[in-house]
């Protein structure tokens, strides 16, 4: 394999360029897409840009692959490319890839043809990658903003849809508000330590192991700074008190964008959080552990409770993603080799199951341009058996039932947590996932089981065989396809997305060996682990 590191050896600038190669490629392609927009007709245009975007992702993957076993620092140590990045980049690129696959069909059916869309996606993906790669508060802030700005635009992308705009607006205000906190936190950290580079801050704190009597205000500053920084990151991770944007913007945004936010942004946020946490938060002097402890519990409990009675599927998944964030956070708290690698694995698994779920939601949204309201799902399991089965599979994975990646993720994270002695945390988490199962199952019930109101009447004899007088699709579907919407052909792109997600969810669930070892390899490149 041709070794770029050797070629550019010695030239500092190229080296630092090399360190951001995967991101850079994406950005280049994003610009290409914009340029292409100038030259040809909108209809062809969107198609081209779609392919360009895919190619871009592919190239980025290629670079990632070629660089995978190097550790390159660039831009005066503010950006690093290491094993940790390799793993998270993979996840992020995957989520971007899946998003793009979903997008085409989604926007085609809504006849929104805009090449910028894809470039924006690429931009935001690259921003996420930068965020993960950054070792410096400046870089963190910049990439967060970069990412967020793209996200704002994408959220409001459906013109004329007031929901979309509203979502964008809320997201914008809240996001900016949060990053203001982050900034101000940075100020305090800067004031306390005089550094903006995580590495330096780490060393600074490490050298003078704080006693409270020594330099009290410094310690206070640092603490305040860290907390505010935490707020900024927690917002992106959508932990409990800072979660408010999640449901609304997920709901309002175009579904592919929701997918991007649910997977990509979450991964990036957790990635950077892990980096920051492992470098500067983990010191005992601050003991942030019980804060996170509480946050985790609040987050998962809130998420599940709010999701329980939810009828709008996108919102439901939004809330469930909040709950998932809680579970993932447990891994971070557990820390250590197993904790972090478990977390990474969970993130990867999370990409596939969430993306898969969204893909199916889009499919149903398009097939019978219904709302994403759960009612419209009744009996879909019969109308589209395979899609229904796949959807149930993803939902079960989200619920954490075995042979799905969701279970394995939970399992790794929880066992790591128990290993570090967080018995109660795990216990509560388990109770949570027990009753979280209810609302995932509720959807499956809707899809497959039509509640016949009058009990003591065997459905097999009356309802299922009954003439399709009753409105719901499934009963009709039960006796042939009579009186049903004609099945449209499922668009290939979506199908590919679903299949990919399905395969990986299954593989991660049954044979996680390579992935977990990949994750644990990537963990080694973090400090203080």
């Amino acid at each position: 394999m041709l070794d770029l590191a050797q070629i550019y050896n010695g030239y500092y600038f190229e080296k630092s360029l090399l360190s951001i190669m995967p991101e850079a490629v994406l950005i280049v392609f994003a610009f290409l897409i914009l340029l292409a927009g100038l030259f040809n007709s909108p209809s062809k245009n969107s198609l081209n840009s779609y392919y360009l975007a895919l190619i871009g992702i592919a190239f980025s993957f290629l670079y990632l692959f070629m660089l995978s076993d190097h550790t390159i620092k660039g831009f005066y140590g503010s950006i690093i490319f290491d094993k940790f990045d390799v793993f998270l980049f993979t996840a992020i690129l995957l989520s971007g890839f899946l998003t793009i696959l979903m997008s085409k069909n989604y926007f085609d059916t809504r006849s929104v043809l805009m090449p910028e869309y894809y470039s924006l996606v690429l931009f935001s993906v690259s921003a996420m990658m930068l965020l993960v790669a950054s070792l410096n508060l400046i870089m963190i802030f910049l990439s967060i903003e970069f990412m967020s700005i793209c996200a704002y635009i994408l959220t409001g992308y459906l013109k004329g849809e007031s929901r979309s705009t509203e979502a964008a607006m809320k997201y914008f205000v809240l996001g900016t508000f949060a990053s203001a906190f982050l900034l101000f936190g940075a100020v305090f950290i800067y004031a306390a330590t005089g550094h903006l580079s995580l590495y330096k801050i780490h060393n600074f704190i490490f050298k003078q192991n704080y006693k409270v009597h020594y330099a009290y205000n410094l310690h206070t500053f640092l603490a305040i700074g860290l907390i505010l920084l935490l707020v900024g990151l927690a917002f992106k991770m959508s932990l409990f008190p800072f979660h408010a944007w999640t449901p609304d913007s997920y709901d309002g945004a175009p579904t592919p964008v929701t997918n991007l936010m649910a997977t990509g942004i979450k991964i990036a946020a957790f990635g950077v959080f892990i980096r920051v946490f492992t470098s500067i938060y983990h010191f005992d002097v601050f003991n942030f552990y019980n804060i996170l402890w509480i946050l985790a519990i609040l987050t998962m409990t809130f998420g599940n409770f709010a999701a329980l009675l939810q009828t709008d599927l996108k919102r439901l998944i939004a809330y469930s993603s909040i709950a998932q964030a809680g579970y993932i956070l447990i891994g971070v708290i557990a820390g250590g080799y197993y904790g972090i690698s478990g977390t990474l694995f969970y993130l990867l698994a999370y990409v596939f199951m969430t993306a898969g779920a969204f893909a199916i939601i889009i499919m149903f949204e398009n097939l019978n341009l219904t709302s994403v309201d759960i009612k419209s799902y009744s009996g879909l399991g019969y109308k589209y058996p395979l899609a229904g089965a796949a959807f149930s599979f993803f939902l079960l994975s989200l619920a954490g039932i075995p042979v799905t990646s969701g279970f394995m993720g939970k399992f790794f994270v929880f066992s790591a947590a128990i290993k570090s002695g967080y018995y109660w945390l795990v216990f509560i988490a388990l109770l949570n996932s027990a009753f979280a199962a209810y609302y995932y199952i509720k959807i499956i019930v809707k899809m497959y089981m039509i509640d016949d109101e009058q009990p003591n009447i065997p459905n097999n004899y009356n309802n299922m065989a009954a003439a399709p007088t009753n409105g719901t699709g499934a009963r009709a579907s039960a006796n042939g396809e009579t009186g049903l919407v004609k099945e449209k052909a499922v668009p290939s792109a979506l199908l590919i997305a679903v299949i990919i997600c399905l395969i990986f969810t299954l593989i991660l669930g049954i044979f996680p060996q390579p992935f977990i070892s990949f994750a644990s390899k990537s963990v080694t490149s973090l400090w203080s682990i």
Partner: protein
Amino acid sequence: MNVNVNVNDYLAVASIIFCIGALGVLIRKNLITIFLSLELMFNAANLGFVAVSEYLNLISGDIFVIFIMVVAAAEAAILLGIAIAFYREKGAISMDKANELKF
């Protein structure tokens, strides 16, 4: 002379400005005003950075400030876009209008 005091004062002022900004965001309804308050918060941060980097004779803070300004500008652009779109649909840019998405 005691430098510590100065920088602390700077920071105190910055914090006050920040809080004012935050309050503005919280209590105002008009989108533009809210954005201005956000800017205020950002600038509070800027002030802090400048003061600290001055005090520690570092340059990184100042660099950060420049970046922040750029970002703020970009955000202004976005906000205007959103605000216009919002106005198109709701006929106003008051927060109260934005209550379609809930629960």
